Structures are given as C-alpha cells and as structure tokens.
C-alpha cells in the first residue's frame, strides 16, 4: 500500500542488550483498573501484561509459547489441555505459584468482566451464572499440573490462555485487598506495581526474581496524556521514549527528517466498518444494503483523511489475521449497480425511500468519514442524516437495535478468525455480544459452528472464508479500512515488539524485552 511501512520484526539488533534506565511510555486515558478480572480496555491490558503472566503468551509473530506453563499437551479428542507449570516461579509478594492458583485465578476472572474468555471450559457457564461452586472443567492434577477440559474442541483456546484476562493472581493478595486489588495489583510479571496517580502516571519497576530473570529496564513510567498534540510535544522534547503519531501527521512524520526514522506504521488486527441492523426497515431489504455498499468508496477516506496510513478493506478480516483470504471481496464501488438495486427495491433514484440516519460516535475522524459517506450516498439519490452521539449513547442505540445504519469497527482480542467472524455474525451473539447487525443466517451459523470446533488447518480457515464472503454479499457489514498502529519510537528504544495485536500509544508488547541503547 502507498506509504505503508510494514515492520514485521522489531529492531532487536545484534548488539548486546544493556541493562538499566527508565522507559517513558504514554497512554491517552487513565486505565480504569489494573485487575485482570475487571479490565475490558487496552489501556488496562497494557499495564496488566507487564505485572502478570498467563500460562501461555504470544510472540511477535503471533505464535503461542509457554509462559507460566513450561509445556502443554492436547488430548487426541482436542478437548483436554494439560498444562505443566514451571516450578519455582514466584509472585511479587514472595510465594511460589502452584496449580491451585490457576484454578482460583480463572474462576475469579470468569465472574469478572470478560467471562467469555472462560465460557468454553466445561462447567463454566453454570459457574458464571452462579449455579455452581467451581468450574468443573478445571482440575489441579498435582502441584504443578492443571488439566482443563472443554465442552467441545476449540482451537483458539490457546490464545485465550495467552490473553490478559487469564492472568494468574495470588489468592491471598486478591482476597486481602478485595476491590482494592485493582489499584494494588500483585502478579508474577517482569514488572511490579509501584504507584499510580490517577490521570497522571502509573509507575512500575523491574521484578528481579521474574522467572525469566530481571527485565532490562529498571522502571517504566506510563504517563497519561489525553491530548495527542501534547503527547507529540512531550515526545519531541524527549520526555517520552515512545508515543503515537497525531491524527493528520502520518505523512509529515514519515517525511520529516528527525522523525522519519522514528515513525513506524504497521497493520493491526482491526477493521473500521459501517454496519446495518438487518431487522430494521429499510435495511431488512438486502437490495437496499447492497445498493449502499456499492455506493461506498473507502479509498477516498483512506488516501485523503487517513493519508494512506491504513489499508483499504476488501473483506472483514484484516490481512494480518491468520486465515485471511485475499480472494474475499466486498461489493465493489459501482454506482450504476447501486441505482439498479435501489430501483428494483422500489425506490428508483432514491424516491420514496424513508429518511436514512447514519449513527456514529463523537470524534473528528468519524465525523469526516460520515460526511464522506453522506456525499457518496447522495450520488445514488440517498440523502443521509448524520446522527452524532457520544460513545455511551451511540453504543446504546447500536446494541438495542435502534440504529439502522451505523459505524462500528472491531479489533481482535486474539489472532483467530473466530474472534472476528463468529463474534460479529453468529446468531447466538445478536446484540451487545458482538452481532449488532442482528444477522441470522443458519447456513453461516453452521459454518461457524463447524470451524470453531475444528482443529487448526486449512479446512477450518476455508469455512471462515466461505462465511465471510456470504456476509459481504449480504451487505450486512461494509468494510472501510483496516486499522494500523502509528507509532513514534526513539532510536535508542530496542526490543519493542510490533505485533499486530500491539498498537500505539498503548503498545501491548511485553516490556521485559525492551532495553535502552544509550
């Protein structure tokens, strides 16, 4: 793509890593919590990932590796995972991690804000609803062995075990502190919590007894700076070592000599889209949705507003997603076809069509994209009314089905098509759980059900691809572009991973790998 600097590997040069120093990182907003069971946002996750470890983790290329688990095995029927824990791993409070910590942590988190991470485990749904004393599918075999049984095979389960909701917490600390654990977290991670002044900064320090050895950095300070212009100024004066490129400065940063070598753009696992509520007239008529899809040209937004720093989308899945198929196609820009479809639906030239509102949440970029859509739909005779609301109001109208045509993207929690397609289009997830298009297609559901339960392999991805094409042909969702991370990284910051799950300014990357070359 134009001007797309894709960096697959971080700059872990041949040089020997140096120890010491403080990394000055930044967030755009205060993390609401530092408790892995309570977090639902990337800012919280970015801190939680440094303080805690899970059984598994993902490397920069999204491969699963062991963390607290030394190794793991999967039963022949793909339902039972046996995790062998490392011995001698210490919590920051001093005690050694044992298998019962895993069971405790998962059960605690299953009753937290992201129960979906655990719902595939046998007995989890009843436990989550408060109808069981524990999750039957989690069994501690001995002090260092945990066996987890799923209801049915679920290949992405290893990703869930690498997700920050599945972090291991020490029972006695969590119980002693109660809700205050969220502001005084204790884990096994490479960094331990030092202080947090709300809306100002979170300070972590290296945990010398981390099971992989002490991290290179002495400290990490996450400043909280809401204005992107201010973050940019802090970066320029050297007070921040890593940050994000402000909106509208992507090209400039890539050309400007001092910043040129520090501006890095890489694709992440997210898609910006507009969706229809297919239950709501006139969008219950597929032809109307298709007409609108044929009239939308995302390249205008991509090359203009977004300065070519994102990729125009053809399908739902982003190219960096395992299982992405280059053959999937959204309905192409074709105004003639759009007019024909409108006419065949009984609204030639848009005449007689009820007024159509486009809902979006507050934000400069969203506003300008909405105006672009308005101009593009006018071409086929559809006048669009723009409805701008703040996030809380917007998501309410989207979730409860009031909004018929709306902006809502998606960013993957883990690198599997299931986390995009099944979440967004399975009839079981209609509403706030993800399928806000309220799309119900038994054929697509069946493909998802099969694929979700299949072992990793081409047959599995083929089913997702087939379902994705059906969804796009049905014009349930119109992809605009795939998100990218637009980062500024000082040349002396080494070892900062740029995985497709890591996005500036939060950088969900493991900071234990980061060192400062100065």
């Amino acid at each position, binding site marked *: 793509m134009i001007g797309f600097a894709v960096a697959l590997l971080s700059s872990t040069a041949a040089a020997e890593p140096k120890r010491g120093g403080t990394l000055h990182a930044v967030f755009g*907003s*205060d993390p*609401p*919590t530092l408790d892995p069971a*309570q977090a*639902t*946002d990337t800012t919280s996750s970015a801190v939680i990932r440094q303080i805690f470890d899970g059984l598994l983790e993902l490397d920069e290329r999204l491969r699963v590796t062991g963390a607290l688990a030394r190794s793991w095995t999967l039963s022949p029927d793909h339902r039972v995972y046996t995790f062998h824990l490392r011995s001698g791993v210490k919590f920051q409070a001093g005690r050694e991690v044992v298998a019962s910590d895993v069971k405790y942590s998962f059960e605690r988190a299953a009753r937290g*804000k*992201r*129960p*979906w991470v655990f719902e595939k485990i046998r007995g989890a749904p009843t436990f*989550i*609803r408060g109808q069981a004393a524990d999750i039957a599918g989690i069994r501690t075999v001995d002090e260092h062995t945990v066996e987890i049984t799923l209801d049915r095979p679920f290949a992405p389960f290893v990703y869930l075990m690498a997700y920050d909701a599945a972090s291991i917490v020490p029972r006695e600390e969590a119980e002693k502190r109660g*809700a*205050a654990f*969220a*502001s005084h977290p204790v884990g096994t991670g490479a960094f331990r919590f030092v202080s947090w*002044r*709300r*809306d*100002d*900064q979170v300070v972590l320090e290296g945990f010398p007894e981390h099971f992989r050895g002490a991290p290179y950095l002495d400290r990490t300070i996450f*400043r*909280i*700076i*809401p*204005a992107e*212009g*201010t973050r940019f*100024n*802090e970066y*320029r*004066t050297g*007070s921040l070592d890593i940050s994000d490129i402000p909106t509208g400065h992507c090209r400039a940063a890539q050309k400007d000599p001092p910043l040129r070598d520090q501006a890095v753009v890489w694709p992440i696992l997210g898609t910006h889209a507009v969706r229809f509520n297919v239950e709501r007239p006139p969008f219950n008529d597929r032809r109307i949705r298709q007409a609108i899809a044929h009239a939308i040209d995302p390249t205008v937004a991509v090359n203009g507003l977004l300065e070519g720093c994102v990729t125009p989308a053809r399908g739902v899945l982003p190219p960096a997603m395992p299982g992405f198929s280059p053959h999937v196609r959204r309905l192409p820009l074709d105004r003639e076809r759009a007019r024909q479809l409108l006419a065949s639906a009984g609204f030639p030239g848009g005449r007689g069509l009820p007024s159509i509102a486009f809902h979006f949440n507050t934000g400069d970029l969203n506003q300008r994209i909405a105006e672009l859509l308005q101009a593009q739909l006018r071409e086929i005779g559809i006048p669009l009314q723009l409805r701008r*609301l*703040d*996030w*809380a*109001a917007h*998501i*309410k*109208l989207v*979730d409860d089905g009031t909004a018929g045509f709306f902006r809502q993207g*998606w*960013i993957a*929690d883990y690198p599997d098509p299931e986390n995009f397609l099944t*979440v967004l289009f399975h009839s079981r997830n209609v*509403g*706030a*759980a*993800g399928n806000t298009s309220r799309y119900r297609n038994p054929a697509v559901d069946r493909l998802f059900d099969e694929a979700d339960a299949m072992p990793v392999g081409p047959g599995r991805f083929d089913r997702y691809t087939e379902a994705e094409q059906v969804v796009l042909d049905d014009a349930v969702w119109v992809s605009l572009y795939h998100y990218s991370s637009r980062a500024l990284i000082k040349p002396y910051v080494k070892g900062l991973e740029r995985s497709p799950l890591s996005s500036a300014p939060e950088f969900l990357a493991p900071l234990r790998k980061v060192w400062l070359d100065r």
Partner: protein
Amino acid sequence: MLSEWGSAIGRRLLALAPVLLGITLLVFVLNAVALGDPARAALGQRADPEVVRQIREQYALDRPLPVQYVMWMRRLARGDLGHSYHQQRPVTEIIADRLPPTVHLALAATLVSIVLGMSAGALAAARPGTALDHALVGAAVLGISTPVFWLGMMLSLVFAVSLGWLPVSGYGDGDLGHLVLPALTLGALHTGTVARMTRSSLLEVVRLDYVQAARAKGLGEWAVLGKHALRNALIPVVTVIGIGLADLLVGAPLTETVFAWPGLGRMLVAAVGQRDLPVVMGAVLIFAVVYVLGNLLVDLAYLVIDPRTRAGAAE
C-alpha cells in the same frame, strides 16, 4: 463583629441545603434522561449480556429512578458518596485524589490573575486615555477572549518545546515548574477580567471627593491611588476574584487536558462520558459546596475591606 460573621456564615450555610438538593436532583434527572447505560459503557467493544445484568443489579440500576435517588440520598446522609461504576472504588477517594492538583492550579491561576490583573488595571487607571491604557485594556480583552486550548498549546510550544524552559505537561511532584504554564493559561482569562474591573473601579473612585481631598493635601499620585483609592475600589474586584476562584476550584477541563493535569474538570468530563453517575453526582455536590463557600468568602472579605458593611449589618 463576631456575631456579624456568624450570621453571615449561618445564612450561607442554610442556603446550601436547598441548593444541594436542587442541583443533585437536577443532575440525577438529566442523567436519567440522557441516553446510555453505564453498565454497558463500562464494558468496551464486547459486552456479555450476563455481565451487564450483574452490574445493573450490583449498582441497583435495575430499580426505579426515585428509589435510586432515595438510596443515594440515604448514603449521602451517612457521608457516603457511593462507588464509581467505572473504577469500582469510593467516589470520595476518587475526588480526594483530584483535590490537591485542582487546588494548586486554582490558587496559582488566581494569584496570576490578582498580580497581573490588578497591576495592569491600576497602571491603566493611573494613565487613563493614554496609549498605555489602550494597550493594557486591549491586552485584557485579548486575555478574556483567547481560547484556553489555543493559548495553552502556544505557551507550551514556545516555553516548553522551543525554549525548553518548562515541562510540556503533567503534574510532576506538585513542583512549581509544572504549575507555571497551566496557571498562566488558566489565569489569562481571569487576569483580563480583574484588570478591567480594577481599572473601571479605580477610575470611578478617583472622581470621589475624598480622593480629591487626598490629592489636595499634596500626596503623590501613586500614594493617592495605592493608599486611598485602591482600598475602596477593591470591593468589586474582590467579588470577581472570589467568584473566579470558585470557578477554578471546580476544575478546568480544557487546561487540564492540554497540560495533562490530573484535576477535577477532566475527571468530571470523563465520568459524564462513562455515565458514571455516582462520580458525577459527587463532583457536582462538591462544586455546589465550593460555589456557596466561595460566595461566603467574598462576603467575609467585604466585612474586612469595607467597615460600612459591618456597620450596616449592625444597624
């Protein structure tokens, strides 16, 4: 004198109760009318319907609105402002965290407005109609009308980015360096108001007989202005400063955003966005108290500055 103070304070505190009741009820109703569910808003892009239901139950969001309001008032009577939906910790703690930075910034900005505003106002009044007067009045109008966001960015660009004299943003450890730019930015608006008020008030007073008498005694112009006129000209100025201080003590979201200052203003804006009603209600309650107390302080200042207000109370 003591009893005068006592009654002034008593009256103000009595007035506080209906103000607080009215304002909390208003905020509660406005929040109820506003679209959006705090339980859903707290859950990011993917909300588990079961979790939404649990949060609604936990915070009694599933109860009728009047019941929720009565529950809130009952807790308030015990000094409990409730728990934030979003941060899941006590509202009193959340607000207490923000008080030191907010108070620092408000006092510093007020100090800026007093020192700069009163000097400029006095200077302009001393030379009315001159180029200096026009320049100062012009500057005051500029101070009042410059958007805070822009001014903050400009000050930051010049003094932090280009010259490197001061930090770009942040609270630091509450040190002076971090305070200067936000205080200047926030103080600019009030500086203008104070300057204009000082000037017009002084010009009014200098026309009065007793000032003419002081001049006739042969006192120098600065002594006339400084010793005799200024004290009497102060009353309206003090009103402006006092109300300005109350204004600043409730936070300044734009300045706080530009300078990443962890104050009450940013907190309130975020809480409204998250529909975090307990935090919004708690903050509004504090704001109302601050406003009423601010006005009380202004009244007390009158008693100190102007003996006639004391006599008036006695008669």
